[in-house]
């Protein structure tokens, strides 16, 4: 099973890279993207990049963007290019196809986010270090790894569900864009509609909770949602159903 998942994952990665032109150009493009995102903001922020939770917040949204750019293609792309039925006609178990595609998207978003973060750290040290070694606190480093992984999994799960139900990549991407905007504006409106006292209490609770417990709660919540999405995907991913869709 692990070998099957890896086979699907590596095929997906190869396609992600070539999606941006040639294999070498594609890899270079991804590194430039990670470098730009990873370097510009940290250099602007200086030492506060490592001292404040900004890097953790950044490590949550970056994989969302990265995974969103590829997840629509996962099933809808195969369906649109008429490769899905052939893939389903192979010996690969359902779970290997599903987990292989999810692992590819999550791995892509997570790895690039970590690379971007490390490049940011390097840039901050080069520009603002002045002989000192600027590093994240261990808990902050753990938080970056945690939220970027779980954020990537969240986007891959939700995006995978949308992609499974879409006939074309364009349709999947449109649906995903609408969903993201819905969540964003929903949160914004929800926060604005919240009574000021509640909002203050929420802020105090977050600030007062301490970094460790907060990361634990966020991790648990995201992990639960990720598992729920994976279960939904596993239920939805049925060969006969996909053939007839």
């Amino acid at each position, binding site marked *: 099973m692990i070998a099957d998942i890896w086979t699907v994952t590596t*095929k997906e990665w190869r396609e992600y890279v*070539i999606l941006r032109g040639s294999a070498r150009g594609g890899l270079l493009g991804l590194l430039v993207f990670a470098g730009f995102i990873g370097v510009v903001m940290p250099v602007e922020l200086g030492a506060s990049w490592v001292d404040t939770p900004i890097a953790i917040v950044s490590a949550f949204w970056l994989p969302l963007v990265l995974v969103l750019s590829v997840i629509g293609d996962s099933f809808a792309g195969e369906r649109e290019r008429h490769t899905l*039925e*052939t893939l389903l006609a*192979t010996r690969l178990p359902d779970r290997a196809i599903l987990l292989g595609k999810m692992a590819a998207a999550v791995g892509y978003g997570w790895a690039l986010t970590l690379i971007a973060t490390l490049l940011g750290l390097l840039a901050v040290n080069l520009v603002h270090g002045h002989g000192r070694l600027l590093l994240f606190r261990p808990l902050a480093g753990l938080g970056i790894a945690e939220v970027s992984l779980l954020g990537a999994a969240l986007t891959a799960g939700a995006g995978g569900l949308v992609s499974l139900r879409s006939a074309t990549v364009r349709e999947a991407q449109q649906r995903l864009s609408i969903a993201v905007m819905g969540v964003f504006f929903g949160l914004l409106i929800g926060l604005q509609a919240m009574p000021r006292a509640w909002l203050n209490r929420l802020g105090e609770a977050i600030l007062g909770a301490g970094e460790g417990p907060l990361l634990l709660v966020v991790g648990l919540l995201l992990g639960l949602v990720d598992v729920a999405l994976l279960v939904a995907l596993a239920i939805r991913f049925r*060969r*006969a159903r996909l*053939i007839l869709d």
Partner: protein
Amino acid sequence: MGDVGEYDSTMGDVAIRAEHLSREFHGVRAVDDLSFEVPVGIVFGFLGPNGSGKTTTIRLLLGLLEPSVGEAAVLGHDVRREAEAIRLRAGALLEYPGLYDRLTAEANLDFYGRIWHMPANDRRTRIRALLTQFGLWERRDERIGGWSRGMRQKLGIARALMHRPALVFLDEPTAGLDPIAAAALVEDLEALVAGEGVTIFLTTHNLHEAEKLCRRVGVIRSGHLLAVGTTEDLVRSTSGSRVEVIGRGFCERTLHLLEARPEVAGLGLRNGSLWIDLRDDAAVAPLVSLMVGAGVAIEEVRRERASLEEAFISLMEREV
């Protein structure tokens, strides 16, 4: 279903056995009560017009769809319970070649080789052999997005054969190809069957191709299997037997004498020669004796054989 040719049980193992196989979609039977057998090591042609149920049958046999009614065993595995075992030993070129445009020809085949857990060395050897056989080796490093349909189709067949399957399903492999590319592909398939001994389940519209390639054929229309057997059986069962007699001296009296014979279904003169339609594939010798006795100078007697295409059309015109 009319089985026009008895399956010869001495032909060896059976690759596919379907019994009363049916599949319904929203109350409509796309495939209805199919029963047939495909022996190991032959090309079996599954012929029928568009929408007749050919692709649904392949999907059922690959375990991609579950039958509504009936049973089928492919390579000894039940399509309901052992679909993964079937797909482990079978290859398929479905309606589309199923290739990744962004990957090179070699990367496409390598991916499918890895799916079947082929070791790296074996994959390399197999890829080289297949691409060479299909005349694509020189272009192995090209991404296939810009390839012609014929080249993609060839690569699709190579993909289906990559893991050396015991059985290959080919859904209209020459559809959309120009006649030269189609003929070349048919030759490649013949070479493959001879060289690798695989069983091929082939659906096609091209009856010349089927006649050339297939040892046995099944004819399907609107989900019903109209006939199954060897191409000769099919032709014989649908076209009867016509005899052409070339000679001199076909007078009115001779024609009346022949018409009176019970085995003669019809006759007529055409360009100076006589044609006779025989009932039930009857013997010609007594008629030849009769004509010689009546003073006809016979130069040549030959049985006319209808083509598979004529047999197919004849079947299509029959009521289900």
